[in-house]
């Protein structure tokens, strides 16, 4: 736990020259949306939202992988809704009464409602800040109790042994962390699709054909199985393998069918997945 961000500064970073995006300036997607909207001096309306959607999406594109997963996903949810709304605005009207359109309308209303709610709290927070600042300047009488009154308090009944006290200390020091769902398990060790492809290629060139089951037999982690599966799909895209499956959900046989195969092809494989 490093310096608590909620205490470091009360100043709101105000972008001055031009619009600069950096996550530190915004406390969540609604904050960014409101900033974009106010920058354009627009009220929260559908027009305003479609006008700021591009900027919002552009900002999102700049979000690095180092950002908080949950924060980034909130931004994504809002961005997706905005994009949906923009697309709906571009499409010819008239055939709006399908399930998708209804869902879109609901999402839009939800977004509006949440934005308005967020704005209401943001506005009232200035009242909080003003009152707190004013009261901080006030001086209440708060003087320590005269020792002569203290002397008359009832004698303290102390029942703790030394060990009780130590046990109490252990309890008191136990981290009172607010329980959170850990995300560590989502970050499995990185598996390279290219490496997995190399294994698949070498196995298939040796045996000609193997079932998928055989191809992943040695994999000890789910991630490896997934990566090996993706690498096979990639090989299929390069027409290096063909599939045989006699019945749905039945055994899948992968056959090496590449006519030209070079290590350069392998080096390019899975580039789509590189981040």
């Amino acid at each position: 736990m490093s310096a608590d961000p909620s205490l470091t500064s009360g100043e709101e970073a105000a972008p001055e020259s031009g619009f600069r995006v950096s996550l530190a300036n915004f406390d969540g997607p609604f904050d960014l949306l409101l900033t974009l909207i106010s920058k354009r001096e627009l009220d929260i309306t559908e027009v305003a939202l479609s006008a700021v959607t591009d900027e919002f999406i552009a900002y999102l594109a700049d979000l690095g992988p180092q950002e908080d997963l949950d924060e980034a996903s909130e931004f994504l949810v809002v961005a997706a809704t905005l994009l949906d709304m923009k697309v709906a605005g571009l499409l010819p009207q008239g055939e709006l009464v399908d399930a998708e359109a209804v869902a879109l309308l609901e999402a839009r209303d939800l977004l509006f409602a949440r934005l308005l709610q967020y704005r209401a709290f943001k506005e009232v927070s200035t009242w909080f800040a003003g009152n707190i600042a004013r009261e901080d300047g006030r001086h209440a009488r708060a003087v320590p109790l005269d020792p002569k009154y203290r002397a008359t308090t009832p004698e303290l009944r102390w029942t703790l042994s030394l060990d009780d006290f130590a046990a109490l200390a252990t309890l008191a020091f136990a981290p009172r962390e607010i329980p959170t769902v850990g995300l560590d398990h989502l970050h499995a060790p990185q598996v390279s699709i290219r490496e997995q492809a190399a294994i698949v290629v070498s196995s298939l060139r040796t045996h000609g054909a193997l079932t998928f089951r055989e191809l992943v037999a040695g994999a000890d982690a789910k991630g490896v199985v997934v990566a090996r599966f993706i690498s096979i799909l990639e090989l299929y895209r390069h027409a290096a393998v063909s599939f045989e499956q006699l019945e749905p959900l039945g055994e899948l046989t992968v056959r090496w069918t590449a006519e030209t195969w070079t290590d350069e092809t392998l080096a390019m494989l899975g580039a789509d997945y590189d981040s």
Partner: protein
Amino acid sequence: MTADDTDLRRRLEAMLIVADEPLSVVNLATAVGSPVRPVRAALAALKADYDGEAEGPQRGFELREVASGWRIYVREELDPVVTEFIGSQAPARLSQAALETLAVIAYKQPVTRSQVAQIRAVNVDSVVRTLLGRGLITELHADPETGAMHYGTTDLLLEKLGINSIDELPPISPLLDDGSDGFEGIDGIS
């Protein structure tokens, strides 16, 4: 003013002069051994007295009712005299994020962290911890089903805001109620 009145006021003054936090009318009544109603009247009379509305001069201090309790403060216009002398340092300010989270909790209490996070659209864990540490909010009760803790504001917050009850918060947009509808289903997410 009867002799009893004078005596009651004197006893209240004695209590107020040793108090280092707001004292509720009930506490004061217990301390001075008098029913609540005359105590309330006597406090109002003392306040008027200090404000110079009775026969005496206006005092350099005033009696204020904050956070459901009574406490003696330096009269507001004289705060600069005191500040200059004791050179009181400005306390660490709350960040914008902390203020907004505080506002959400104040208006929506009792409220869980995930409900606050929904409204703020960000993770509020560390901000909630800061507010707890500063005594501005407190844990109320765990949800019997999900185990999620519900939070509410404290008397210290009322004191910091200089108000007497949470009802004195300014009204906020009526849209708020509409806005909260339909979020119930997604409360327990995080």
